[in-house]
Structure formats: structure tokens, C-alpha cells
């Protein structure tokens, strides 16, 4: 009955977070519904001409993915803070940054991954060329993982505040910009037929950097929020 070692504990947290998400399917569906609604707004606002939509499609898809990620990142640690679980997590003997990574991985699996998988449907609605779909999925897979990690930093810093929603947007939207720029550029390159590999490589590099550094920032943020 010894304490679970770090790997075991992270697997246990991941399983717990995924089960919690499964028991609240509506919260998992909400970002997807939001994504759908905003995508539907664009043809109404910009006009339904297929050529025009195809030009804007990469940017529209990426901005919407970013916003729907922003919508959910506030909730990563919220319920655990409210019911006292976060205090227990902070006091756990296992390293907090790895526990935080498990939380972020669960968040990405239930938001970014799903979004990337359903994005082709919406891409076709916006008349994005079929040849760019592969790049869109890969760029969203890499990019939303970065967004989840960055969002986790904002969530950790604002979890102690009653209304952290607006503040978290102001905190992390500037950090989202590089992801948006290279994510959109990758899809646009695929549309025009130029190589999208370099952009995807940069997104991959951002992800590596975020995986290495964001958990440390999240752990520090959680300790500060619990202390306050």
C-alpha cells in the first residue's frame, strides 16, 4: 500500500480526469457546439460565395478553434479548487508539474483532439480544398496542444479568483498569437500548394517548448493560487 510512484499517479489522475469528463458529456460537447455555431456565422456575415469563403477558411477555422479552447481552459482546475481537491493535489508527495501535465493532457484529449478530428466537416462547409484537410488536422492537433498548455498557465493563475474568465483571456490571448500565426500559415500553404512542413515543424517546436516549460509555470501558478 505504498504511495503510487510518479508515473502511476499521473496515469491515475489522467484516468480520473477523463472519467469526470465522460460523466459530464455536455461539457465535452459544448466547445464543439460553440465551434459549429461560430463557423456557421461566417458564411452569414461574409456572404455565402464559395470562393470568398475558401480564402478565409484557414483563418476562420483557426480563430474559432482558439476561441473554443479559450472557453474551456478556465475550467481545468476550477472544480478541483472549489471542492478542495486542489489543496490535496498540491500537498501530494509526487511532483506537481507532472500532475499538472496529466490534467492538461486530459483537457487536450477532451477538447483539442476532438476538435481536430471533427474539423474536416467544418472545413468542407467553408469550402476549404480537400487537399488541405490533412494539414488542417495535423496543425490543429499540434496547435491545440500548445493552446491547452498555455491555457493551463492562465487557469492556474486565475483559479483563485471568483470571476477569472475575462482575466484569463487577457493573460493568455497574447501567448496564443504565435500558434495562430503558424497554424493559419500551415493551412494556407497547403491551400496554395506550397510546402506546409516548415510551419508544422515550428508548431511542433512550440509544442516541445510548451511541454517542457508550461507545467513548471502551471505548478507555480497553482501554488500561488492555493496560498492566496
Amino acid at each position, binding site marked *: 500500500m505504498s504511495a503510487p510512484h510518479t508515473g502511476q499517479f499521473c496515469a491515475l489522475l489522467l484516468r480520473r480526469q477523463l472519467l469526470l469528463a465522460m460523466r459530464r458529456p455536455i461539457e465535452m460537447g459544448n466547445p464543439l457546439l460553440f465551434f459549429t455555431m461560430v463557423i456557421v456565422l461566417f458564411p452569414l456575415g461574409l456572404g455565402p460565395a464559395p470562393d470568398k469563403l475558401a480564402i478565409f477558411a484557414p483563418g476562420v477555422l483557426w480563430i474559432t478553434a482558439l476561441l473554443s479552447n479559450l472557453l474551456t481552459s478556465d475550467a481545468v482546475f476550477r472544480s478541483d479548487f472549489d471542492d478542495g*481537491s486542489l489543496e*490535496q*493535489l498540491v500537498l501530494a508527495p509526487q511532483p506537481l508539474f507532472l500532475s499538472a501535465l496529466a490534467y492538461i493532457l486530459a483537457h487536450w484529449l477532451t477538447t483539442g483532439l476532438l476538435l481536430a478530428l471533427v474539423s474536416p466537416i467544418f472545413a468542407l462547409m467553408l469550402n476549404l480544398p480537400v487537399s488541405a484537410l490533412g494539414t488542417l488536422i495535423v496543425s490543429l492537433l499540434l496547435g491545440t496542444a500548445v493552446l491547452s498548455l498555455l491555457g493551463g498557465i492562465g487557469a492556474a493563475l486565475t483559479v483563485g479568483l471568483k470571476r477569472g474568465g475575462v482575466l484569463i483571456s487577457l493573460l493568455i490571448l497574447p501567448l496564443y498569437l504565435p500558434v495562430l500565426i503558424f497554424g493559419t500559415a500551415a493551412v494556407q500553404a497547403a491551400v496554395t500548394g506550397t510546402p506546409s512542413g516548415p510551419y508544422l515543424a515550428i508548431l511542433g517546436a512550440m509544442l516541445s517548448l510548451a511541454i517542457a516549460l508550461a507545467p513548471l509555470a502551471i505548478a507555480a501558478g497553482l501554488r500561488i493560487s492555493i496560498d492566496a
Partner: protein
Amino acid sequence: MSSSAAGAPLLAAQSLSLVRGGRELFCELSVEVHGGQLWQIEGSNGAGKTSLMRILCGLSRYGFEGEVLRSVTPLYLGHQPAVKALLSPRENLQWHVSGEGLYSNEQIDTALARVGLCGYEDVPSHTLSAGQHRRVNLARLFLSEARLWLLDEPFTAIDKQGVDETQALLASHVDGGGAVVMTSHQPLQVTCNVHTLNLVHGVVS
């Protein structure tokens, strides 16, 4: 301070001072907690009991003066029960975020039975009452192997019989060489010796 306790203290606080909102809650507070001791922290509402507990367990790391030394990993139960409404009591204990131990189903069943939740192991926790949530949390005391327990108001929302049983558990933990530091407004009725720390008057035996 008890002179009978031998060896290094499980928890030692050295000259703790805390000011909150311009008011000095405690000043130069020193206490050593050894195995076999039960400490009750007393004080009126707002006297700083919870603040002291959070400092002792390590949740508060800044904003106070002094030093806290812990030679063992304590088990801390705070005001919030840390029970997830969407998980059953069994899942709550099995996958507890405190990372304390991996427990078998039998161990969890036994612990839940001890806190009077036999038959509630696999129902969603949101169907349980507030007191039952607290009991799920108290079940951790039956599972834990931690020597030092830091309990912040453990009897809140617990019925009279539950309080008696919990007090008996605390006494047996102390008899077994463990240590308990707790806050409570109720006078303890335990068989072991109770050390009292009154935040208004300073340390009294």
C-alpha cells in the same frame, strides 16, 4: 510541552508570527509535535486556527514569519471535503489526488464501512449529504499510513455518534505512536492526554 516524548519531533514550528488585515493573529508561536501527542488548537472564530493549520501543513508558504519543519509527510484534511460529486465514494478514495496510496477494494470497503457508508460505495457522491461527504473524507484516516494528521474542523457536519467514533480513532492513532493536530470548538472526550494550544493566550500544556 511534553518532556516524555522522545526523539525528533514530527512537526516543529519555530517562532511563527502572522498578521492578517493589520491584526496580529499570533506572534512568536513555537510548538513541537511528537509521536503520541494530540494537539487541539483553540480560539474563537477568526483567531487564526485555519491559517495556522495551512501554515503547518505547507499550503501557506509566504506571508508569515517563522519556520515549519516537517519530518514526515502529513495527512491534511481541510475545510473542503475534496470529494468529487461525479465520482462514487469508492472512486473518490481509489483515485484520490493526495497521491497517498493505492488501496484495494477490500481496504476501501472496510474504511467506508467504518465511517458508516456501507452500501454507499458505488453510488454517485452527489446523491450523498454534506455530512456523508465529510465521512468519505474521514475514511481517509482509516486508510492512511501517515503518522502525522493535521485536521481542520474534522467534526463539522458529523453526527454525534460519528464524532465519538472519530475521537476514538484519533485516540488509537495517538496510542499507536502517531500524532494529531486538530482544530475544533468542541471539547474532546478522548482517553489520551490532550495538549491545548490556545491562540489567544499562547501555549497552555
